[in-house]
């Protein structure tokens, strides 16, 4: 069985302009959303605060729940249905007046308020995460430095194995992927939590994976098909690896979609990030990374001519 014809010869490079426009639109949409919302919606592990996931034996109305929270001055918390109507997620950002670093009392008082209010209905805590603001700040710092670190290592590795221009193409492609994913999340109103950051790092790894397979074929073809035009070689390489690119994306998407559907609630947003990232990553390997390599190459050739 073959999904991609053996002798396919699609001219990827000629679609550069359209690709750039598409990417611009996606990135812009994301950026606009980010600006409107004042930056990405960071989860409490970055801002500090308390998250309580509760399981109610009998589902209660959200309005009633909010009332119960107002009794203890937490009426402004975010309340979400999480999975089934019996599972509620309550998130409260770090409250100044709660003062000290110690948020653990907050979760206890929330449970207490519900037990008082909803007599006869058993409320159990499924999950509690409480994070002091200091930890949150530290986490933001370490997130940024770890992403930067990963990018540095990757650039070094690619520059070593291929040429520098491939490294640039690769890094631009993956920054493009991450940016669009974060933008999409902002548009969809989803939080950037720790698992999402893990997903972003995975997307970086995966996107690179793709780009390298293509670059490897380009490298090989450059050696073998010396006489041909650079752009033609690029196109040829893209076509030759298309089959593999499509299949791998397919299998990866397959499992991630399965995770999205059957995985636990906590994993859903994580899987969504991966779905977006893997799709965009595949697209960027074909339409974003290589045009950059071509552009760089053209600049190099132009410089050579001047000499």
């Amino acid at each position, binding site marked *: 069985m073959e999904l991609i014809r053996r002798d396919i010869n699609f001219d990827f490079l000629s679609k550069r302009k359209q690709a750039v426009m598409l990417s611009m639109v996606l990135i812009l949409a994301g950026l606009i959303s980010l600006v409107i919302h004042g930056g990405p919606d960071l989860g409490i592990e970055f801002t500090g605060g308390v998250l309580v996931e509760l399981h109610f034996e009998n589902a209660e109305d959200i309005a009633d729940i909010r009332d119960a929270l107002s009794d203890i001055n937490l009426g402004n918390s975010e309340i979400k249905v999480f999975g089934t109507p019996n599972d509620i997620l309550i998130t409260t950002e770090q409250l100044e007046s709660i003062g000290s670093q110690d948020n*653990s009392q907050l979760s206890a008082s929330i449970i207490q308020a519900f037990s008082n209010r909803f007599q006869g209905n058993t409320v159990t*805590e499924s999950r509690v995460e409480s994070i002091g603001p200091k930890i949150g700040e530290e986490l933001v710092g370490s997130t940024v430095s770890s992403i930067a670190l990963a990018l540095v290592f990757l650039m070094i590795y*690619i520059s070593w194995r291929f040429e520098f221009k491939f490294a640039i193409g690769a890094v631009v492609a993956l920054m493009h992927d991450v940016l669009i994913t974060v933008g999409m999340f902002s548009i969809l109103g989803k939080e950037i939590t720790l698992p999402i950051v*893990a997903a972003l790092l995975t997307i970086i790894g995966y996107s690179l*994976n793709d780009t390298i397979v293509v670059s490897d074929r380009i490298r090989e073809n450059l050696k073998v098909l010396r006489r041909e035009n650079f752009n033609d070689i690029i196109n040829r390489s893209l076509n030759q690896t298309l089959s593999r690119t499509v299949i791998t994306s397919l299998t990866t998407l397959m499992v991630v979609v399965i995770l999205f559907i059957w*995985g636990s609630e906590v994993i859903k947003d994580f899987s969504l990030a991966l779905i977006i990232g893997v799709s965009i990553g595949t697209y960027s390997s074909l339409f974003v990374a290589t045009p950059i390599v071509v552009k760089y190459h053209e600049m190099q050739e132009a410089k050579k001519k001047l000499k």
Partner: protein
Amino acid sequence: MKRDNRFKWILIIVFIVASGYYLYPTFKYYNLSDEVKNDPMNIEMVTDLERKAIKRGLDLQGGVRLLLEIQLPSLVEKLAINRDDMFYEIFNEAVENTGTAENDFLVKFEQAAQSRNVRLERYFDRDRRMDENSDVRPVMDYLRDEASDGVRQSLGILRNRVDQFGVAEPTIQPQGNSRVIVELPGVDDIQRAKELIGKTAQLDFRLLRPDATFTQLIDLLDKTLKGETIDSTTVASDSTQAEKPSPESTEVNISDLFGDSSATGTETATVNQQLFGEKPFTSLLTNIGDNRVRALEKNVAVINAILQRDDVKAALPTDSEFIFDADPVTVGDENYYELLLLNKDAALGGEVVTEAKVRINTGSDPSKAGQPEVLMEMNRQGSSEWSRITGANIGKRIAIVLDDKVMSAPVVNTRIPSGSSVIEGQFTMDDAKDLAIVLRTGSFKADMANIQENTVGPSLGADSIKKGTVSTMIGLICVAVFMVIYYKVSGTIADLALMLNILFVMAILAGFHATLTLPGIAGLILTIGMAVDANVLIFERIREELLTGKTVRAAIDSGYSRAFVTILDANVTTLITSIVLYQYGTGPIKGFALTLSIGILCSMFTAIVFTRALFDFFAGKFKMQSLSI
């Protein structure tokens, strides 16, 4: 060639057998029926199996993870003597400027003192010999030592407490110089565990201030509060029905009168309207005769807030402290807490307590008989002090204070030579037991604040495992079926490699006692999708080579050799990000990075070595002219 092959096969078989060996305990453990698990005869076998099985993260088995941090300000305050205004000036400036660096408070404290040319010896010199001419250094070293000592001590106390509480496999570890990680897997009563861990357990015995002083200070508070422009006409004339002790009680808005109400969590307080204008503080209290007062439960927070105000703190003398009783008295529908005025300094500190036991009250007082109470014993020095103190204060009350709440304040009837004291209150058996544990293990030198908590209830954990297993199965099946459809028999070979892959990853996790978390399961599933890539690269290459007319064996050869380089480069990059993620992530994320990394490494092995061995075997044995790929 043949020798290479034999070596490959030996390697493969060794790995498979080893995996089986490492995974067997997990398999057996999860298939044990509950009945067998709970049978006490089997306890050794079960624990042994559990230890060898794959370790589940907290998010899969339920439990609590706490990150505690030593609160340096409170430690410094506690260690200091002669705390005067200058001390608090330096102290407060340091608190304001403390940044996120570890032990930064000490640095800022030192700076604040130096900028004012203050010698810190006068606050910390106790009975240590310090050079008259020394600068700030030795005191700072002393404070730093106390800080690390404090962390070390809290580790010990936590271990003791957790031990006595009874948790299966707790983890209590320091992190950096000022933090402690506590992990309690599989705890049933999470609230109780948290309270046990978090209790500072600062115990001391304090005398009450004389009655005259009590009345005087209440008066003083009334006057201080009146200094506000309180318009008594803003009092809402709510028709709240008068309850026995306070005639004409009214609801008033806290924010109107005493300022910001957000710290108290309530909006109103109940006051005695008659007294309110003249004596705002007294109006919050209820007189119970004998110079004792108590307050309605809803007023407690307001009163505490008032007592924390700067102007109030300045007005009150530094030798006294208002403290509430820990247990309420119920009258009708309402709970009341007694408010006492104690000496700020302890007559006797809690470190003399050597033992704490729970017993049932067998006295004649019906309100107490049958209730659990905690009996404490003291060491020799404590006992003789206690004897002296009780002897000198017969007829007066002595308060037993635990973490700024009065546990008991009985009247001293006789001198107590035996060094024993009792805390009675409204305890459940569990409460009493926990209190005894906490008294027995001693108090934290410094407050340990809970700066991060991750708790997962057991049912969520089990649910996550179930969903994770289901997803993995479905994922495997889908990918496997696809591979067979697309690559036919070769696809089946790839599927075998996939199964082996998963087997190896799980075995490695079990063998190295690595922890499997929920994201870890996600990582496993992701590996399924990405691992197939190696096979795809090889197969696509082989297809290409076959099209150029090569023989089956030659195509297989060049397919593998050419693809190898690509696989290496591609997987190394994913590995790099995985490793960075492992270093950076906490618990669950680490689990994800771990399974992803292990999965990728194993997939390289199975794709390159295992499938190649299989291909070679078939190609050699059957002298194939064509390849089903």
